[in-house]
C-alpha cells in the first residue's frame, strides 16, 4: 500500500537543498524591472500626473499611467468562469486607476533596467490629488452622503439572506431561550513567505508567456485574456515552485500587468515583484467581520435555531467579497445541521486594502461567532461545553438544511470524544477548583468546525490529469492542479501509484504547471485538490493500467483480464507471485517494436458533483496571567475528520500549520488601520505579529477516519480546516479561566486589558 503511508514528499529533496526554483530564481538576459507608483492617500482622484521627468531618465523603458491602460474593467477573483449571469465575479478594476480607493492604490507603473533606476523614476513622477474623506469603517461607508467608492453600488458589494430548515419566526416562538451576542474579527494578512512576483515576455508578435507565483494558473490565463482582450490561446501561464499562498494567490494580481507591460514594450521580459511592505497592503487580506448571532434553545439544551446578521468589509475592491460571507455561512451550517439556520449578510466597500480569499474563506470568522455564542448557550444552561456540542453537533445521516442531501460521513462526535481524552477534560474538570482567585488562572476550551471539500454546487469542480509511460517503466504524471506547499503532488503520486500497482518511486509528478501543456484544472483553493483532482488522477491511472495490460496481453498472449500490475510487474491476477514480465518490458515493446504498440498515455477529466463535509474540533488548556493580560497555551489539540488520510505525516503538518495560523489570528495578528486616514500602520513582518517559533506552543494533531464513500480512497478535504477552530476554543478557555468573554480578535494584551478592566479584574 502506498496510500495511507507517510512517503517522503516528492519535492522534498529539491526544497531542503535549495534546488527548487521559485519564480524569482529564473532570470532572462535583458529582463527589466517594473515598479508601481502607489497612491499616498486612501480616497480621492488624481487631478494631475506628470511623468515627463521619469520618462526622460536614462535606463527607463516606459512609464504608464491610468491613461495608458485598456479601458477594460475586469474581475480578479480566482473562481472558475460561471455560465450563470447572476453568479459572475464582480468587475471593478482597471490595470491602473485615477480613482484612488485605498492608500497604496496603483496609479502608474515604471519599467526600467534596474531596481534602483525604477525607484528613482518613481520619485520623479509628480501627482496631485483631489482628496475625499476616507471611508474606513462600515458606518462611514454606509453613511447617507458617503461618496460611492464604486459607482452605483451605494458602497454595498452584495447583500445576502437565506433561511434553511424551517420557518424562523415559528421556531423562534418554540424556543425556551434566545441568546444573543456580537463578535468582531480583525484584518489578517496571509504572510506567505514568498511575496507576489511574476514576469512576462513574448514568444512572437502575439503570444505572451507569464511566469507567476499563482495558485490558479488556468484561471489566471483566462483573466489575463479578459483584462487585455486577447484570445486565451495566446496566453501561456507557467507556475514554478510556489512559496505559499493561503488564498492570496487565488487572485489575479500581477499577471495582467506584466502581460500588458511586455506587450507594450515589444515583448521584452519584464519582472514585477512586490516587496513585503507593498504586498501586505497591495495584494489581499482577510475580511474583517462584525457578526450578531442569535441562538434559540429548548429546555433540554437542544439548539433549535442559529441566526446571523453579518457585516463583512471587503475594502477597496470586491475581489472575493461577494462570495466570502455566503461561503462561510454555508460551510459552517454543517456543525449544527438539525437547527434552523438563517443568515442575513452585507458586504461593503471601504477605503482599506482589498480583502480576498484566505485559508477557510469566511469560515474562521463565522465559526468564531457561532462557537462563542454556543459557549454562552452551554454556560447559560449549566451544561458542560463538550457535552453541549456532543448533544447538538452533526452526526452521519443528518441532512443538510441547505442542499437537503444527507451527510454521508461525519466524525464530529468521535473527534470531540478523542479531544476530551487527549486533553484530559473530565479529569481536569474534576480536579481544578471551581472558583479561581489567583493572578494566573487556568481554563479549558473547546470549539468545533465544519467545512467543505470543494465548491460544488456553487462553482464547477473540474480536474484533469495525464499519465505517460516512460521507457523505464516509470510514468510521468501531469495535473492542472497546483502544488503550493500543501503536498498535493505527493498525494497525487501516491494515488496514481496505488491505482497502477506501481511503486511510489516510479511516479514522477510534473510539478511545474504550464497552461500550454498541462491539462485543465482550476487550481489550489477550497481544499479541493485531493478530493477532486485525486479522482481525475485515479481515473487516468485506471486507463493507463488498462492500456498497459492490453499491450502486455498482446506480447504474452494471455487474456488481459487474467493479468494485473503489482510491484512494477505484470503478474497473474489469481497468483500474483507469478511474474509474466516487467512493466518496463511492456514499455520498451510499446515504444520500439516495429510492428505494434506506440506510446502508452492516458488522460482523464472529471467534474466532482459531491462535496462531502469535514468536521473536527480544537481542545485547549491555557493559563491567563491577569495583571499582564497574557495568555499562555499549555496544551492544544486539533482533531480532524478528513476521511481516510492519504499521507499521515503530511496531513499532520497541514494541521500543525493551520493551528499555528489560527493561534496567530487568535492572539497576535492584526493589520492596523488609522480610522482617519486609512493608513496601514504595520505592513511589515516586525510590527505585524506573525507568530515566531517562540510564540507557538507544542502542537497536537489527531484524526478520526470514516471512509468517505464518494471518494475511491475514502478521502475528504484537509488543507484549510485546521485554521478554523483554534480562535474560538482559545476564547472559550479564557472565559473558562476568568469568567470574561472576549468577543473580538485578536485577543492580544491590548484587547484583553480593555475587557478585564471593564470586568473589574484589573
Amino acid at each position: 500500500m502506498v496510500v495511507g503511508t507517510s512517503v517522503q514528499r516528492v519535492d522534498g529533496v529539491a526544497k531542503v537543498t535549495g534546488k527548487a526554483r521559485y519564480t524569482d530564481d529564473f532570470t532572462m538576459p535583458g529582463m527589466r524591472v517594473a515598479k508601481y507608483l502607489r497612491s499616498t492617500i486612501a480616497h480621492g482622484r488624481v487631478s494631475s500626473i506628470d511623468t515627463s521627468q521619469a520618462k526622460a531618465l536614462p535606463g527607463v523603458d516606459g512609464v504608464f499611467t491610468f491613461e495608458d491602460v485598456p479601458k477594460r474593467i475586469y474581475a480578479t477573483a480566482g473562481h472558475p468562469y460561471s455560465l450563470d449571469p447572476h453568479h459572475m465575479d464582480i468587475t471593478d478594476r482597471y490595470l491602473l486607476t485615477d480613482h484612488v480607493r485605498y492608500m497604496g492604490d496603483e496609479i502608474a507603473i515604471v519599467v526600467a533596467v534596474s531596481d534602483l533606476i525604477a525607484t528613482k523614476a518613481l520619485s520623479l513622477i509628480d501627482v496631485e490629488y483631489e482628496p475625499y474623506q476616507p471611508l474606513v469603517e462600515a458606518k462611514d461607508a454606509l453613511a447617507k452622503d458617503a461618496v460611492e467608492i464604486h459607482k452605483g453600488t451605494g458602497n454595498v458589494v452584495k447583500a445576502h439572506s437565506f433561511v434553511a430548515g424551517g420557518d424562523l419566526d415559528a421556531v423562534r416562538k418554540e424556543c425556551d431561550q434566545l441568546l444573543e451576542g456580537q463578535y468582531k474579527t480583525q484584518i489578517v494578512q496571509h504572510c506567505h513567505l514568498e511575496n507576489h512576483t511574476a514576469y512576462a515576455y513574448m514568444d512572437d508578435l502575439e503570444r505572451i508567456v507569464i511566469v507567476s507565483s499563482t495558485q490558479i494558473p488556468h484561471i489566471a490565463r483566462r483573466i489575463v485574456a479578459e483584462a487585455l482582450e486577447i484570445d486565451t490561446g495566446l496566453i501561456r501561464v507557467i507556475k514554478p515552485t510556489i512559496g505559499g499562498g493561503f488564498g492570496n494567490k487565488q487572485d489575479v494580481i500581477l499577471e495582467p500587468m506584466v502581460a500588458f507591460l511586455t506587450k507594450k514594450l515589444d515583448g521584452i521580459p519584464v519582472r514585477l515583484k512586490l516587496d513585503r511592505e507593498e504586498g501586505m497592503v497591495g495584494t489581499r487580506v482577510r475580511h474583517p467581520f462584525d457578526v450578531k448571532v442569535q441562538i434559540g434553545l429548548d429546555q433540554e439544551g437542544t439548539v433549535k435555531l442559529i441566526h446571523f446578521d453579518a457585516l463583512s468589509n471587503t475594502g477597496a475592491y470586491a475581489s472575493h467579497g461577494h462570495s466570502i460571507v455566503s461561503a462561510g455561512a454555508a460551510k459552517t451550517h454543517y456543525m449544527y445541521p438539525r437547527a434552523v439556520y438563517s443568515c442575513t449578510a452585507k458586504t461593503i466597500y471601504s477605503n482599506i486594502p482589498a480583502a480576498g480569499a484566505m485559508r477557510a474563506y469566511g469560515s474562521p470568522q463565522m465559526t468564531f461567532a457561532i462557537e462563542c455564542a454556543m459557549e454562552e448557550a452551554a454556560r447559560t444552561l449549566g451544561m458542560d461545553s463538550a457535552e453541549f456540542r456532543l448533544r447538538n453537533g452533526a452526526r452521519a445521516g443528518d441532512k443538510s438544511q441547505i442542499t437537503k442531501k444527507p451527510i454521508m460521513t461525519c466524525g464530529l462526535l468521535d473527534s470531540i470524544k478523542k479531544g476530551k481524552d487527549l486533553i484530559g477534560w473530565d479529569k481536569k474538570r474534576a480536579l481544578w477548583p471551581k472558583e479561581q482567585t489567583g493572578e494566573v488562572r487556568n481554563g479549558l476550551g473547546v470549539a468545533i468546525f465544519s467545512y467543505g471539500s470543494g465548491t460544488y454546487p456553487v462553482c464547477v469542480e473540474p480536474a484533469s490529469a495525464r499519465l505517460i509511460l516512460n521507457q523505464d517503466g516509470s510514468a510521468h504524471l501531469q495535473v492542472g492542479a497546483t502544488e503550493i506547499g500543501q503536498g498535493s503532488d505527493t498525494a497525487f503520486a501516491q494515488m496514481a501509484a496505488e491505482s497502477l500497482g506501481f511503486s511510489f518511486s516510479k511516479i514522477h509528478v510534473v510539478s511545474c504547471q504550464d497552461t500550454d501543456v498541462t491539462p485543465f484544472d482550476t487550481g489550489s483553493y477550497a481544499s479541493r485538490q485531493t478530493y477532486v483532482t485525486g479522482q481525475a488522477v485515479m481515473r487516468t491511472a485506471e486507463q493507463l493500467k488498462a492500456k498497459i495490460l492490453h499491450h502486455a496481453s498482446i506480447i504474452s498472449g494471455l487474456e488481459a483480464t487474467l493479468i494485473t500490475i503489482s510491484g512494477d510487474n505484470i503478474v497473474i491476477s489469481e497468483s500474483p507471485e507469478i511474474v509474466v514480465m516487467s512493466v518496463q518490458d511492456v514499455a520498451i515493446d510499446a515504444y520500439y517494436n516495429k510492428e505494434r504498440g506506440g506510446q502508452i498515455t492516458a488522460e482523464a477529466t472529471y467534474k466532482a458533483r459531491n462535496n462531502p463535509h469535514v468536521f473536527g474540533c480544537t481542545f485547549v488548556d491555557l493559563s491567563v496571567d491577569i495583571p499582564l493580560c497574557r495568555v499562555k497555551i499549555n496544551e492544544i489539540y486539533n482533531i480532524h475528520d478528513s476521511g481516510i488520510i492519504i499521507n499521515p505525516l503530511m496531513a499532520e503538518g497541514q494541521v500543525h500549520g493551520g493551528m499555528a495560523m489560527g493561534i496567530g489570528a487568535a492572539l497576535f495578528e492584526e493589520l492596523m488601520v488609522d480610522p482617519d486616514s486609512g493608513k496601514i500602520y504595520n505592513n511589515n513582518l516586525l510590527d505585524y505579529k506573525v507568530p515566531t517559533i517562540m510564540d507557538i506552543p507544542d502542537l497536537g494533531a489527531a484524526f478520526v477516519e470514516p471512509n468517505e464513500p464518494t471518494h475511491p480512497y475514502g478521502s475528504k478535504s484537509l488543507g484549510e480546516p485546521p485554521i478554523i477552530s483554534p480562535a474560538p476554543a482559545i476564547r472559550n478557555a479564557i472565559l473558562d479561566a476568568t469568567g470574561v468573554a472576549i468577543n473580538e480578535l485578536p485577543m492580544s494584551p491590548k484587547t484583553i486589558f480593555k475587557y478585564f478592566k471593564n470586568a473589574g479584574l484589573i
Partner: protein
Amino acid sequence: MIRTISCTVNSKPVSWQIDVRMSLSEVLRTNGFTSVKEGCGVGECGACAVLLDGIAVDSCLYLAIWADGCNIRTSEGESKGGTLSEVQQAYLDNGSVQCGFCTPGLVMSSTEFVEKHRGEKVTRDQIRKEHAGHICRCTGYESIIRAVEQCMKPYEKGK
C-alpha cells in the same frame, strides 16, 4: 564602487567583483546560490540565512563586502555526493518542509544549532530560542523542532 571580495562558498574558493552597495544575499543569488531566499529583505523573516564562519546571519542585511575572507555555507552545499546532510534528512523525515521557501534558511540555523550543541541534552525551549529569527508560515514549527530533536538524539550524553 566596484571591489573584489574573496571568500569560500560551500568549500570552494571564489573571487567576485561586486558593487559595494550590494547585500550578501544579492551577490549569492546573482552567482547562482538561489537557495538564499528573499522574504522581506530587511532581516525580519530569516529566509536568506547563511552560515558565515559558522554563525547564521541574515544575508539580506549583511553587506557582501563584509564577507571578504569569510567562509560561507548555504543549503546547496550541505548535501554532498548526492547524500543529504543529517539536518536536511531530518527535515524530510519529520515533515518539516511544506512550501519550502523558509526551508534553506532554517536548515542553516538548525545546522548551526546541531553542530554547536553536539553532545548536549537540549530542551525544546533552547531549540525555539535559537531558531527564533525565522518565520515559517506553513508548519507551525512543531515539525521543525522535531527534526532538530532527531538530530540531537544520537549525541546526547549517556546515550
